[in-house]
């Protein structure tokens, strides 16, 4: 009987699970958790680079969501709502750790401050040679503000207007942060590749 109930839980659509979770149905909570756990956890893990902390933040994000699920009316997509909570939880964690969480606006570099790239110089292309492990490492080396926007846009697939709403910045700022994150990653990947090439 339990297996039948379990498979019934698997077949729950998100909308059904939300309604049943509002009534306190444990299987519905679990179904929602299973649907979204990987995305939330992956985001937390890449932001904190620590499995234990990422699990704690995942737990906290879901708990906050489930506590408020009675107020969810479907104005936005459920996953967006959940990710917004996960982002808030991560940002609070970064603040608690004393990381310099300056306003995202502040991370806009001026033309003078950004890494100089001479246009017209020859570049060896990365396309076709990006190593996933190196990319993960490079993402881990990004400043928190860049990393957050990059993860939400390029990894999780959110649009800039959604990111702006989640993170609390302007759309223009989100685009700028994303571009800078990609440029920084490009620089890190090339450096990594160059270092590897010089190894005996």
């Amino acid at each position, binding site marked *: 009987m*339990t*297996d039948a109930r379990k498979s019934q839980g698997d077949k729950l659509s998100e909308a059904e699970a939300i309604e049943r979770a509002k009534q306190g149905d444990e299987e519905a909570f679990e179904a929602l958790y299973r649907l979204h756990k990987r995305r939330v956890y992956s985001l937390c893990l890449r932001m904190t680079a620590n499995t234990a902390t990422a699990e704690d933040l995942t737990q906290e994000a879901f708990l906050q969501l489930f506590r408020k699920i009675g107020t969810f009316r479907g104005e936005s997509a459920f996953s967006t709502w959940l990710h917004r909570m996960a982002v808030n939880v991560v940002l609070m964690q970064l603040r608690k750790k004393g990381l310099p969480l*300056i*306003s995202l*606006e502040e991370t806009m570099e001026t033309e003078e401050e950004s890494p100089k790239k001479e246009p017209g110089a020859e570049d060896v292309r990365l396309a076709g040679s990006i190593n996933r492990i190196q990319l993960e490492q490079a993402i881990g080396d990004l400043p928190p503000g860049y990393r957050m926007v990059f993860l939400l846009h390029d990894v999780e697939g959110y649009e800039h207007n959604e990111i702006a709403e989640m993170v609390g910045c302007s759309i223009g700022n989100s685009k700028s942060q994303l571009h800078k994150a990609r440029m920084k990653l490009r620089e890190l990947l090339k450096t990594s590749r160059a270092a590897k090439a010089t190894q005996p």
Partner: protein
Amino acid sequence: MQRRQRVAKLVVGVFLAGTVVAAAETHQEFRFRVHRRASVSVANQFGPIWVKPSSGKEVIVTAVLHSDKVEVDHTHSFNRVSIVSHLLSGADAESGRVEYQVLVPADANVTLISATGPLRAERLHGDVILEGNTANVDVRDLSGGHVHIKTLNGPVTLTNVTDGHVEITSVGGDVALNAVNGPLIHVNSTSGRIVYDGDFGGGGEYSLMTHTGDIEATAPSYASIDVMASSTQGKVENDFLLQPTHASFAAKAGTAFAGTMGKAASSVRLLSFSGKIHLKKR
């Protein structure tokens, strides 16, 4: 230019706010040089204690005191380190709160005591003793040592504890064991729910007993166990096909079952006086 000024003001504001908050808190750090299998104990009435392995032969204690109504007393005697949060007159759960992060050599024997917790220990292979009142107890990635946990009503979660000698006593706190195996795994609960998800491996002795709580044990089809389950006043369910054994044990449909699977390497007892028991197949 105006925008930059606004932004600068925002940053200054955030910084000042952080400073004001930080001013009420005191950060302290203590370092102690120890040898193999040091003994480290931390007693903290209010607040979390988190223990992780350090890289050297040092015990590093970082404490955040929430007010001046509590102080940290510490003693270091050869290979024994003791940290106690000393509550001063007028201290309560908020003002007496201290947050500890403790780094110890991985082979250290650790004792953590807290009323409210949470208590957390990870990646150690010495003996670990945790005592909490309502503290949330979280233990993960331990191997080889003894793990003793006592709690009145705090939930207990063990994850990836291998080759362990584990004894948990809980009055009302739920106990969750994920990937826990070893020569001895004993859980004794009055009303707390016990959930086990693992393989009952290691040729060990597994005993999950409760008075009124439910027991839910999930094991793979390849588990090698000699299992006995009984609920005097509750119901039992079993998803496995067991080889009959235990001629002296009276199996009663719905209230008790017994049998073996595989080579019956591990002994498993699931006993609840009046709760439900379910042995589930993963």
